[in-house]
């Protein structure tokens, strides 16, 4: 079953604009992670936010976490064409929390 569900499924913006992607999850989590995937290749880890954190920044990325609503958002500011990719949220799940459960992702297109 999906732990994370991203919204929207696809997003198209102009270069320089901000992009916001949302993620909802079902069960209690210790942390939530965001990954980027370019053209069906490997995933690149972007940022991890712990359950006791509300907001975290990394360069042009800002992630928020609302555990009461079981939701998270990823904001990419001043987008660039190179940000074109699929973005996934993922949370540890299962006994021991060894596995990551991913959503279906948001496909972001940044138009130059």
């Amino acid at each position, binding site marked *: 079953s*999906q732990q*994370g569900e991203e919204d929207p499924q696809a997003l198209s913006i102009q270069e320089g604009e901000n992009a916001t992607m949302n993620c909802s999850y079902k069960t209690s989590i*210790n*942390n939530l*992670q965001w*990954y980027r995937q370019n053209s*069906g*290749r*490997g*995933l*690149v*880890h972007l940022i*991890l936010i712990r359950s006791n954190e509300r907001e975290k920044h990394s360069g042009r990325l800002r992630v928020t976490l609302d555990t009461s609503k079981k939701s998270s958002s990823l904001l990419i500011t001043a987008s660039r064409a190179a940000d074109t990719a699929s973005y*996934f949220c*993922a949370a*540890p799940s*299962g*006994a*021991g929390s*060894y*596995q*990551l*459960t*991913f*959503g*279906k*992702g948001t496909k972001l297109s940044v138009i130059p």
Partner: protein
Amino acid sequence: DAGVTQSPTHLIKTRGQQVTLRCSPKSGHDTVSWYQQALGQGPQFIFQYYEEEERQRGNFPDRFSGHQFPNYSSELNVNALLLGDSALYLCASRRDRGQETQYFGPGTRLLVL
């Protein structure tokens, strides 16, 4: 410092055949996980290996098996291939202690005809 590497990059097989995919973890990592990603979907957890043992398994049939070697590298074996096994297979590694982030390899794209 080499990241996670996988081989081969692409593979074409026919139904009923068997396939072996290989993964070398990032230096210093001792835990390897395998994921299957169908087109347009998020990765699905297959299993995780630690200390040469399968530690956790996702909802995949016994046709999917694996192995971890003393140097922490790993193999994923799939027997009796089905058309539905066509996917990108991703390997991820991390240190078992004190690290929650998983580092992914570039994947092996398997096509079953």
